[in-house]
């Protein structure tokens, strides 16, 4: 199945998308968010916020064809 992924801040470097367009990623059926993060080569401890189709998601959440994923590190600066 194919999912679309955007990543922000320190996680952007794991996706090749300079203008921030969602990157399409092919995953096996039944894959979870954590599988996607591993496949992208992101250290899982660095992913502090994950959103699936615009809603807050857990790393064990199962993905479906066409899902849109947004990934963020922690951010606290002012």
């Amino acid at each position: 199945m194919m999912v679309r992924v955007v990543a922000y801040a320190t996680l952007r470097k794991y996706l090749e998308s300079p203008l921030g367009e969602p990157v399409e990623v092919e995953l096996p059926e039944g894959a979870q968010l954590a599988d996607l993060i591993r496949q992208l080569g992101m250290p899982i401890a660095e992913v502090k916020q994950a959103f699936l189709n615009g809603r807050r998601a857990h790393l064990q959440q199962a993905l479906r064809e066409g899902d849109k994923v947004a990934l963020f590190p922690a951010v606290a600066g002012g």
Partner: protein
Amino acid sequence: MGVGSLEYLKARLRQQARCVRDRTGRVVAVLESRTVCAIAEETGWSLRDVERTALSQDLVPIRYWRNMGLWGCCGQVRLLESRALVAGLGGLGGLATELLARAGVGELVLVDGDRFEESNLNRQLLATGDTVGRSKAVAAAERVRAINPAVQVIPVVGKVEELGDDLLAGAGVVLDCLDNFPSRYCLQARCRKLRRPLVSAAIGGSMAQVMTVLPGDPGIEALYGPQPPGEGGAELVLGTPPATPAAAASWQAQEAIWLLLGRPPALRRRMLCLDLESGCCEVLSLG
């Protein structure tokens, strides 16, 4: 009718207002700042009371004229009667304070225990060659008075952890402009306990996140869990450049204004994410 009476004040304001046409051709009765100041001095009423009284008669102090299109005289009176508390007076809080003072929020509690440092000069509106080494709260209060002397400012040189309940409880809205997780968690917990609305922003590099948390709503723990995920985040690596906090603080100030006006905020139970490098902008649901 005594010089100090409300009737006299109203009459003086009507007398001194001048009628002009706005850019759509509509006639508006306006008051210049020097007129407002002179009437305050003559009658003994505070600047804020003079402005409120003027607005309640549809006489517009010129400094608020360009606000009228979005919230009108009634909204402006409501803002002048409101109090906002800004926690943290750095990149986010400096600009948020500036915008709230210009909007005409009547009372501002400005909280920061730090002094300006040279490393603040890249982004913090209130950091200048003259303010480096000075208290951020004191410098912010001076800035507000210079922008809008009708605003009552309460500078608090201290940490949010030490802030009195009375100051938080009296705020119509609280702005989280802090720069570390433990203080952000503490402020949110205290706002929840005192049932105060909170508008929180955080930045790292070119990315900003902004969310509005009303009592009972999911907040920072919806993102990171019940405990702070450390001291800081991506900003430790990507830094805090000039434009990102300004973008986030603008959203924060407008959210605070909607809340003070009693209007629905744009970012309740939602989080705005902006990236000024990729151009990405999305609003995500916090459930």
